[in-house]
């Protein structure tokens, strides 16, 4: 009787049932969408972080940033001679700087590897190479008034230099001169060829050629990123010149995510030689033996090895800004509260509609009570109808939510993520390719396509909410029904 009565009653009140179901469906769909978009945001952030870390890295260790010493600005310095004979001969100068100008001794890698909870640790040296090439011509001084005099040599750097010499009362004027040069900046990572499962190359696949062998620890070979190779027409077998040293390209690396910013990979020793940073590394990549112990490992390293900054994924996530961060904040704050508000409104509306439906059925429930139906049986009937209504709303909401999540994934809106150290520390901004030249705060901008994956947990949450919505509405209606007296059945017709 329970099932038949329930089915017929819901069939009779199709419109009201649909309104309740739609209200719940809207709330549940919002919860699913917000949850899946949030999951998508987390995935996007993970993707960004992995692009810096490489796969398998739980944290990085960098040198704690210190103030530059006097006389060392930390900025790149280029020196060019202006040709005095009018020659426009091209001059070139490479400046190789370590990432952030801060480096750790290679021995620290061993110390880190010995810490409790560390599965493995690999050092890498990240460099920024700024190449400036072009021609520089000297300005020529001309005196007015016909007085002869030695033409002064113009100040270096062309116009604006004042001449010297000559006794002419009229000041000579410098004319002509100038500079025409290109600036090309790219990032280089020195890789520990002995263990490439961690470190800058771990997040990339070698799609052409091969990677370094253990025997190439100091060989003049390079692996270049696919985008850099394309940009500079590099192929396996060709040579690449950095600061006067030629390297043979042995492989092309394609990053697992498009966000990797390292252009050239060299054996660690070669990178150290280039930067004049023997036995130095900028970043130590650490894998913990238990992913749940990351915080403990971080504390141990910071406590036992002074002058280091340990950055975990969680720390790095806090430095993410840009539209990804904004959208993530929106999803977790506004989205969460919006779905709670809609859900609460849906629960309230369904409770009120159920209660109102019970009020319209006074005679019906009064009659059943007069026939000897106990209050609990009448209540069970009302709650049952309500829960089924809630489940219908849940099914509809899951459908709507899945459609919305699918639409988000199909559209894949592009979000930008800006990663940078938040100042004061050589944080994860010190990842490969992550920094600008010199000691300036580093920042990367990456573009991420947003997806909205729906997990089984989210579906289970939706079903739970649907049942909860039905129970809340049913409880309110059932409470009213249980309070009705059988005499109401007679009184309503008297």
């Amino acid at each position, binding site marked *: 009787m329970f099932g038949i*009565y329930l089915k017929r009653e819901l069939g009779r009140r199709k419109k009201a049932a649909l309104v309740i179901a739609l209200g719940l469906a809207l709330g549940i769909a919002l919860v699913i969408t917000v949850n899946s978009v949030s999951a998508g945001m987390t995935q996007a952030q993970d993707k960004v972080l992995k692009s810096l870390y490489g796969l398998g890295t739980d944290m990085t260790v960098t040198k704690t940033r210190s103030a530059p010493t006097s006389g060392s600005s930390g900025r790149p310095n280029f020196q060019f001679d202006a040709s005095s004979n009018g020659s426009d001969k091209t001059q070139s100068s490479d400046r190789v700087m370590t990432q952030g100008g801060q480096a750790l001794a290679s021995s620290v890698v061993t110390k880190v590897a010995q810490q409790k909870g560390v599965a493995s640790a690999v050092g890498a040296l990240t460099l920024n190479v700024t190449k400036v090439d072009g021609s520089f011509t000297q300005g020529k001084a001309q005196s007015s008034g016909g007085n002869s005099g030695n033409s002064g040599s113009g100040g270096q750097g062309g116009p604006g230099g004042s001449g010297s010499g000559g006794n002419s009362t009229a000041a000579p004027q410098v004319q002509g001169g100038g500079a025409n040069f290109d600036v090309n900046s790219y990032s280089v990572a020195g890789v520990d060829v002995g263990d490439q499962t961690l470190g800058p190359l771990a997040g990339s696949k070698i799609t052409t050629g091969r990677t370094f062998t253990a025997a190439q620890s100091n060989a003049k070979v390079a692996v270049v990123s696919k985008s850099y190779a394309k940009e500079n027409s590099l192929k396996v077998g060709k040579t690449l010149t950095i600061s006067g040293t030629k390297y043979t390209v042995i492989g092309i690396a394609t990053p697992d995510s498009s966000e990797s910013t390292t252009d050239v990979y060299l054996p660690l020793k070669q990178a150290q030689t280039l930067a004049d940073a023997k036995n130095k590394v900028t970043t130590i990549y650490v894998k913990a033996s238990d992913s749940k112990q990351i915080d403990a490992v971080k504390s141990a390293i910071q406590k036992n090895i002074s002058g280091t900054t340990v950055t975990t994924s969680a720390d790095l996530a806090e430095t993410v800004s840009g539209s990804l961060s904004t959208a993530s904040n929106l999803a977790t704050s506004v989205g969460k509260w919006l779905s709670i508000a809609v859900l609460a409104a849906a629960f309230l509306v369904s409770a009120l509609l159920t209660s109102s439906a019970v009020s319209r059925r006074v005679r*019906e429930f009064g009659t059943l009570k007069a*026939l*000897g139906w*106990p209050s609990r*049986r009448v209540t069970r009937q009302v709650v049952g109808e309500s829960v089924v209504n809630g489940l219908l709303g849940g099914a509809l909401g899951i459908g709507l939510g899945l459609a919305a999540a699918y639409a988000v994934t199909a559209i894949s809106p592009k979000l930008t993520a800006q990663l940078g150290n938040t100042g004061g520390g050589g944080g994860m901004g010190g990842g490969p390719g992550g920094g600008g030249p010199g000691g300036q705060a580093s920042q990367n901008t990456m573009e991420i396509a947003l997806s909205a994956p729906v997990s089984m947990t989210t579906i289970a949450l939706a079903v739970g909410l649907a049942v909860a919505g039905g129970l809340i509405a049913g409880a309110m209606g059932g409470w009213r029904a249980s309070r009705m*007296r*059988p005499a109401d059945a*007679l009184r309503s*017709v008297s």
Partner: protein
Amino acid sequence: MYRLTGVTKRYTRGKETVEALRGVDLTIEDGDQLVIQGPTGGGKSTLLQMIGGLDRPTEGSVELDGVDLARIGEARLTRLRAEKIGIIFQSFNLIPTLTAQENVETALVPLGVRPAERRERAAEALRSVGLGERLTHAPSELSGGQQQRVAIARALVKKPKVLLADEPTGNLDESMRDEIMALLEGLWHEYGLTFIMVTHDSSIARRAPRLATIKAGRITLTEQQPQSYAPH
């Protein structure tokens, strides 16, 4: 047997207190037929509610076979209604979404009768009131007289000791009224029920063997010569 002693019922509406029944004393023997008549608002439906255990008196006692319905707990009173008292309403009070057979079955649900037996007994009850061909009809597909027959089948399917009827012909035309009254009279005889009916209809009241008239909450009993509805 019913024994009502000093039954008083007061309703409070705001600051006003209305006394619907004022010290009613009444005895109804098993198998008796009693018709309650009186003006609107006189208290007849209230008296029926007290007798049916649908409401409790403010003062006095309503004993059915020695059990005071005014004093027993709600669960026991509900159980007693389910087992011993069949009720027919003026507006039939059928569940609109259920078929005739399912409506009759609702009276057996609180007794814990198994579904198969419930269906069989409901069908039998409907056949006994001449609706054997209408088992699967919804109330909206039946005439007023047929709906009241379904309500009668629902009241009798559990084989109650007492049958209460609140204006059972109030919504029917004259010919249908006589038909229903003849059916009720026949069932009263057949089942040996205690039959208590409230009516406005003087022609029905005149035919009852015992007439209780209620005015302003006070009862007057009259014994009279019964007249049958059975066709001559």
